[in-house]
């Protein structure tokens, strides 16, 4: 078993998350905070918000990745140690949301992944959590799915909007 596979397997409990807002409208972001505060309280599972991507097991990516934030997003993800796990949150994080084709956005994680690959940054696992805004329950479920603690209920279907 490679070191990477071992590391992936080892991440099971007390994961540390880093919240990366790439030009989101705040709705997903306050739901992330909601998940961390008493009502949902993910800290009881050891999930902790950390201040640097270098300390993070998972990046919570919100927003459509605006042109302005793109270089900073790439830098933050590059700074993360392998294995790189990403939770693409909300309609915007998943596919760019309502501004998927606007002049000042990149348009969701799929496009970002291509840019990351071009820049030599590999992503080891990603889970898409849709919703506008994403619900705190969905965030918690997404994290568990990412860690392999729950089985995926739905089948994966990829849909792309045409470029025309």
């Amino acid at each position, binding site marked *: 078993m490679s070191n990477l596979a071992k590391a992936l397997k080892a991440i099971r409990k007390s994961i540390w998350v880093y919240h990366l807002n790439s030009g989101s409208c705040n709705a997903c*972001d306050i739901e992330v905070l909601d998940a961390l505060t008493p009502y949902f309280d993910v800290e009881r599972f050891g999930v902790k918000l950390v201040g640097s991507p270098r300390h993070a097991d998972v990046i919570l990516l919100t927003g459509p990745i605006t*042109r302005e934030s793109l270089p900073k997003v790439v830098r933050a993800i590059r700074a993360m140690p392998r294995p790189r796990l990403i939770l693409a949150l909300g309609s915007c994080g998943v596919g760019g949301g309502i501004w998927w084709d*606007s002049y*000042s956005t990149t348009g969701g994680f799929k496009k970002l992944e291509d840019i990351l690959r071009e820049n030599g940054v590999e992503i080891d696992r990603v889970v898409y959590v849709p919703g506008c*805004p994403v619900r705190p329950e969905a965030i918690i479920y997404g994290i568990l799915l990412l860690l392999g603690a729950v089985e995926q209920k739905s089948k994966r279907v990829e849909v792309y909007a045409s470029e025309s």
Partner: protein
Amino acid sequence: MSKTFDDIVKQLVDMGGVVEELKASEVYVRVPRDRLRNFARFLYESGAYFKTCVGVDERQLNNMFAVYYIFGLDELGKDVVLRALAPEDDAWVDSITSEVPAADWCELEFRDLVGIEPRNRLVRRLVLPEDWPDGVYPLRKEFKYDMRPPVGAFREELAEETGIPVGPYHPALHEPEYFELYVEGEKIVDVAYRGFHVHRGIEKLAESPRFTYKQVPFLAERICGICGFVHSTCYLMALEKAAGIEVPERAEFIRSIVLEVERLHSHLLWLGVAAHLLGYDAGFMHAWRIRERVMVLAEYLTGSRKTYGINIIGGVRKDIDLDKIDKTMRTMASLKEEFSKLTEVMLSVPQVKSRASGTGILSKSEARALSVVGPVARASGLYRDIRKDYPYLAYKRVSFKVPLYTEGDNLARLLVRVDEVYESIEIIKQLIDALPGGSISVEEYEIPVGRKAVAAIEAPRGEDVHFIITGVGRPYRWRVRAPTYQNIPALRAMLRGTPLADAPLTIASIDPCFSCTDRVVVYDMRSGRRSSIRITRGG
């Protein structure tokens, strides 16, 4: 104010302005572009405050670029809109920033996005990324909304940085933002704000073929996840005013109720964040625990925790039935009880009081010069509340107090918001009690082309202004000015000369909301300070 609205209009005409359109609530005056400054000075001296300015590409209509400067006469409840025209080959207007400092950003904004040059002032790129090609103006009509100029190679900026590399992403922070504080020892000498990470091109999208009048409310709601309903309501108010659509009374009441629910969740969110910044995390957690009740109520009323999506042209989509009334009343009662417990404890914690009082002071005269809005204005002794000044929706039917403090410090801003929570609870109760019958939306409407309107709403953070020019099937031009846009420049006045340790709380005390503001903004300043460090704010 001694002058009446008619006096002001008359004097504008005497100065050389031409009245283009006179409505009950606003007047449009065409002014020569080289004398804008004189008109602005006159209006400011007559007690008006600056709302915003808008650059419009009107070449399809009259072969000119137009700039609209919107002033509010809040004591009269009316607006004055100055309109100056500039031909395409010589696109410039006179800058008014020497008279009205608050116009700084919006002038740079139309310079970046429409390509109209404000003259007689310092200019710099504000809105668009640094690698954006010159001479490409997104809000000109020939620019396609989905055109993406190629992104340059990523610069490795790490080597250049000498500060602590935390911004623009920060743990407790839910938005990218970046302040540069220039310090001498522990004292702040100057402040620079660099935002613009959240510019998503909303105004351009709304006039693109992808959107219609009916769809824009959903786009407007996604300007901001915290006060989104304010934006969709404000857009609709402007549109309904322009098109002369009468909204049923019941729909007005429902909109007002949801607006107040939104204010409750926003203020509770802010209180939590403020407590967190004071190092009082128990207060943070409790504020968010209480806030969860409001989120559940919002979901019950509208079907969604946030981004409610119930606004449509001429009304709302979801009615309020007896079950919802009952649930709302019960939530309000328990919320009031829990909130009073929380604030009682929070305000008696000595550290909270001593950290918040006397820090981040904004004097009344500065507040007025910078045209600040919302709780920031009310904490500095400016009686400015759109719900009272320009009564809209159902607010003329309820009685409530506008909390006013004169200290202008962080504690005053905190107390304004605490008081407003109580007022909001009372407003919701009154609205529910007086909820009239009838339908919740109009069946038919028509939207004529070429109409203009300004609408304003008191958002949790202050005045939100929308300006609209109607077009065919979709807005010809739609401009959004969020409250934070107006309040951020006041941070300079608040922070200068204060100790560094107070900066995070002071920055948070205006309750900045960058997704609203950063549709477009960056704030840059003269460089050449002694040393620079970077800090970020939580929340």
